[in-house]
């Protein structure tokens, strides 16, 4: 069964994605923006799969959903390492 909060969460996330893509030129000034965007896309994939698993291939899609979250977390960690892990002058 599809949960309403999951649908709303997906709509919110899609809106945020549109915002990211719309402002991608300015957001490129953010250090390693590509990795951050990839992390967000992975999170979005996880959210989409959350919805889809209610419809079919529950176990497989559930696994993939969690893989999406994990990839998102790993990319976010990489981004944090690149941005905060190295010594640099504050931007």
């Amino acid at each position, binding site marked *: 069964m599809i949960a309403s909060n999951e649908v*709303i969460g997906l709509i919110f996330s899609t809106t945020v994605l549109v915002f*990211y893509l719309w402002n991608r030129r300015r*957001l490129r000034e953010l250090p390693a923006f590509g990795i951050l965007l990839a992390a967000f896309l992975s999170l979005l994939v996880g959210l989409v799969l959350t919805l889809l698993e209610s419809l079919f291939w529950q176990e497989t899609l559930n696994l993939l959903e969690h893989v999406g979250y994990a990839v998102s977390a790993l990319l976010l960690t990489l981004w944090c390492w690149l*941005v905060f892990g190295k010594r640099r002058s504050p931007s």
Partner: protein
Amino acid sequence: MKPVGVIDLVTLFSLAIAASLLILGWRRALDSDTRILLAGMLFLSLFHAFSNSLEWLGITAALDPFEDYVQLLEPWLWFAVAYSFLQHRGRAKLRESREQLLDLYESAPAAYFSVGADGIIRRCNLRAAEFLGYRVEQLTGRPVTDLYADTPDGKAAAASLFKRFHAGEPIVDQELQMQQADGTPVWTSLTVNAVRNEDGDIVESRSMVVDITARRQAEQEKQAMEMHLRQSQKLESIGTLASGVAHELSNPLTSVINYGQLIRDRVGDAKMRDYADGIIEEGDRMAKIVRNLLSFAWQETERHSPADLRDIVDETLSLIGAVLEKDQIRVEVDIPSGLPRTRCRSQEIQQVLMNLLTNARDALNIRYPEYDEDKVVRITAESAEHGAWVRMTVEDRGIGIPTELLGRVFDPFFTTKRRDRGTGIGLTISHGIIRDHGGRLVVESEPGVFTRLIMDLPVDASPISA
């Protein structure tokens, strides 16, 4: 444990590391607002992952009721991080742009003033303050008219200009005289724009002031040079004409004098002899004028040689000193011993000096018929213009020359003396001699106060022979 549980644990640990990196490198990147939002985002993700892990570990998730809210909040925190970053970048760029504009305004080559409708300076840039020798805070709040020189081209012209400006006339590149804090007048070019309110009334004026003192000086020097050139050309053409006329007069004059002498020698009547003497005397006088004219016009063949101005002055005073002494005129000579020599024809410079001293004597005798302690002629010499010239000055405190006649003193036959006292070509000849030496002769005078003739001669650059 199921694979999903392992994946969730990976997610949890990964996010924990990300949060640690953020905390450890807190000040290394991004602005504080964005960092706080990022921390919030990581906290929600951690919460989400922690909640998932509890479920797969078989622990009843006590956090489930909150997870729905977390799921809704999480995307907005991603949005907030990006939005905050963009805002911060926007503000930083605005600040940078403002600093650049401020730098451009402050260190512009022109001085800028914003003046209220009441004529009080509201703002000005650093250049304005530096240019006028004030500090910025000394200029702010001051009436703008205070900055103009107390001259017809200063305050008076500015007042008239501002009146026209308030009547709607534009002010573009108007040249006015301002004055610096120490009172030094400076020439400026002024351009003013009006700032108007909705009713069209001027509420502020924005002025751009450019220092044109150097340009004005260059223009004045150019004008002086042009005047000098015109004078030289005029003298040259008159010289040619005079030489022709003098040449034509020379032979008939000789005849007149000869005939005069014949009459004087052959006539017995004493009165007739007196008349003949008169003819000879006036003829000699005319012949002298003719010789002077020819001397002025001819190219001299005498060679230039190094000479000491002190020697020239001494020789001249040996000729004219007695006459000056008789008229109770004191001569003061101030010539430093180490003065460079000049390359000249000594006789000609002596002739010039003789002319100048004779003129000084006449001027002093008119002003002081008897003895006076101010009945003095001063002869001074000095090295000028970084040693390129030797400058000799002959100054008297006689009657002076009226300002309107100053431009004509070198004109041939121009004289203010009685007919029997001067022919009006002494200074013309002197000017020609100095010009031929590559020098210059300048006159300065204030009627009733002084007359100063300044003679510049080039320094002898040849090595001194043993």
